[in-house]
């Protein structure tokens, strides 16, 4: 019991670092911290969860093409591990799957767009089917649908409504909790696109 309390107290600052990371160096630092937690406490599923998230973010922000591939490959390995864990929120896992596919697509949109776009929509739909109030799934799905609508020279009519819903849900999150709270920056990004 004592070790779990110690872990939670030690883990909270790491989660805080994940949420405020912006540069490659920030993500690499917090990745190292998460890795130590994940190896020392494999039953701490949140460590695996956040490692997956940070690897995906690193693939998006790092300029090194070879490292992008490696981070995405590692994220896939962690996602497979998450799928086997019992105490993890499945909606959050599918949201991360969608984010990873988006990162794959972003590495070469012209070639990877047709390959992954169907699957991305499907995976976000799954996340929302499990939890319709997952703000991360809402905002990421909305951003992707808006991009695809533009590609088809159309408008995604529900974009403002989705941003509004995600904003309200993010505002209601308890930031002291260790459960996933990232994603507010995507709302800010969405608002800048409107």
């Amino acid at each position: 019991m004592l070790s779990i309390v110690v872990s939670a107290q030690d883990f909270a600052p790491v989660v805080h670092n994940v949420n405020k990371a912006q540069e490659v160096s920030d993500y690499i630092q917090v990745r190292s911290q998460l890795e130590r937690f994940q190896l020392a406490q494999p039953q701490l599923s949140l460590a695996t969860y956040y490692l997956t998230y940070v690897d995906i973010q690193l693939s998006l922000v790092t300029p090194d093409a070879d490292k992008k591939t490696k981070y995405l490959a590692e994220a896939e390995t962690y996602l497979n591990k998450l799928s086997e864990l019992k105490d993890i929120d499945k909606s959050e896992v599918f949201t991360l799957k969608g984010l990873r596919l988006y990162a794959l697509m972003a590495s070469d949109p012209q070639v990877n767009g047709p390959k992954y776009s169907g699957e991305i929509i499907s995976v976000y739909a799954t996340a929302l089917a499990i939890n319709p109030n997952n703000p991360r799934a809402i905002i990421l799905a909305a951003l992707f649908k808006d991009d695809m609508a533009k590609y088809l020279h159309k408008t995604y009519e529900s974009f403002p409504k989705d941003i509004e819903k995600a904003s309200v849900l993010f505002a209601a999150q308890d930031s002291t909790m260790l459960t996933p709270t990232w994603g507010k920056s995507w709302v800010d990004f969405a608002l800048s696109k409107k």
Partner: protein
Amino acid sequence: MKKMSLLLLLLYAGVFSSFAQQFKVEGKVLNEQSKPLPNANVFIKGTIDGASTDSLGNFSFTTNKQVEMTLCVRMLGYAEFNTQISDKKSTALVLNMKPDNITLDNVVVSAGNFRVKGNSQFGKMSAVDIVTTAGSTGDLYHSLRTLPGAQMVGESGKLFIRGGDSNESQTYIDEMHVLSPYTATGDNMPVRGRYSPFMFEGINFSTGASSSEYAQGLSSVLALNTKDVSPIIKIGVNASSVGFSGGGTRAFEKGSVSLNLDYQNVKPYYSIVPNKYDWVKPYQLFSGSGQIRFNPNQTTVFKTFVGYDKTSFIQHIASSTNQPTRNLAFNDENFYLNSTFQKTTESGYKIFAGGAFSLKNQHVDDALIATDSYRNKEWEIHLKTKVSKRFADFLRLNVGLENFFRHNDIVYSYASTVHTDSINHSISALFASAIFNINSNLYAELSDRVEYTSINNMWRSNPRLSLTYNMKNGVHFSGVVGQYTQLPENKYLLTKNDLRTENCMQYVGGIYYETKNKVYRAETYYKKYNDLVLEQSSSLTSDGYGYSKGLDLFFNDRALFKGFEYMLAYSFNLAKRKYLDYTELSTPQYATIHNATVSIKYNIPALKSILGVTNRFASGRPYHDPSKSGIMNSTTGFYNSVDLSLTYLVSQKVIIYTSATNLLGRQNTYNYNFTNDTTNPDRYMKTPVTDSSKRFFYIGIFITLSGKTAYDVSNF
């Protein structure tokens, strides 16, 4: 009170004691070239005490003293480094890292294998990639013919791989054998695969030297894995130039049920596009497929897949020198069912068990001559179980058992004569493999398959050895040596039960280069066949033999030109056999020396379209001209086809797919049929075997009806 004081005293003592036992760990991390390695993660194993190295590779942190302490260093792209330290030996450390090994779970033996959609870098193709390849006409087997090793046998449509006959290629769905993977058609009508590529998550195509787990395939194995549980509802319909289909998936809490129905009728198409067939009743196909998937927990999967199709047509065959006119009436029913169970235990054992049932029932009237009748009923039961486990970082073991029960009845009647034949037999096998590291770059797989075939009472042991050597920068070498066996086809076993099991010794090796956007492969092979069926003096023996050798080249690049993806495949093959009715060692009629495919895809975002162009070439095919001496004494002209495809995204839920095969209308000749010239017995009438129509056009519209998916043409 005293107890509380004592407790507090102990607590403070413990606190001060722990502070007294903290010490510093510091040092430097270097790469394989002894240069500083920044951002490496250095920590005490089992704790969260650690730090990242700075730009000079230096690290420093404090930790509490423990009895045994392992200092661990991890860095993306490098193998984990571990060393024992103590409070007396914890400073001025210099730690040297080495580049990463691929883990055993990711080892994919490359020789003879194409993994489509899997963990390997090469496995980035999907069902969408397959169907948007020009010339595939949405068919999995047609698209596989663009890969090196596959030969262009256009009048058949089946897979002929590296000089091997089509019956030497086997198909598996979820590890279970499919007796009859192709649709039923008449003579010189190319077949298609029974199952849509969109049903499958994983497609693993082996052009030779396949795993010991797969049975009875001398040339190739196509292993297909269906999709896992779908947690969302999908409904879709499609209409095309040859039919329409619809289906969907219903999701439940721990599983899903999928169903797809398909109807094809070529009458509307052939009323517009001229073709050489004279239909009395045009080709029709009705098919249905379904799947139930159930995950009671995260580590257990149950799947059941079922497919049924019924084909019928009546084709008018004009009279010839030898035969009067007749109406060939063809009816075929095919049923396939498989159920599988997979579980990963807490101790890491992966358990698999499965059963499959295949049934084919064919009825042809006016099959060979007017008023005759041919009935062919064939079924197979396949049972399989296997266990695998990784025992250490360097060793993984797989063991399995399987059994095939096969039955075949034929009845041929003409006038008052009825000829029947029937066989019942089984194949039992035990297979085992061990994959292990010899060193950090070299992997080996040693396996064997021991098989007993009841029909000829033969035991065979088929050992196999593969080696994979990984160099840096995505280059690796792979080689396989293995023996493979296969029973002769039923049509020969029905005549002579004790024919020996055919066998093929295969040697495959190559060099492979894979990065995120490129795959380059060069592979050479030699196959030695023995105990092939040979007709001698009107009786069958197992004295046939042959060989096949060649070189396959493959280039796939998604980065050379922005927006373009190109694929180049070239095969050089020299094959000779003395088998069936060949009186001397000769090149088989289906084998061509040179096969080449160039395939280009271009994504045009402004037009919301993907354009595909494929140019396929094959050198002339040998054929037997009875007016000349010897056999396979002549060669057809070369084969060439330019195919075009266009995929257009109308909206999120509507996709239009169009393709044109052999756009330039070249008359490709695959073979010649010879009949006696009634005016001159020394002369023969020669009729070319060609495609039914010069060009084939396909247009299909795919509509997603359900609310949650888009750009997803799969109903499974």
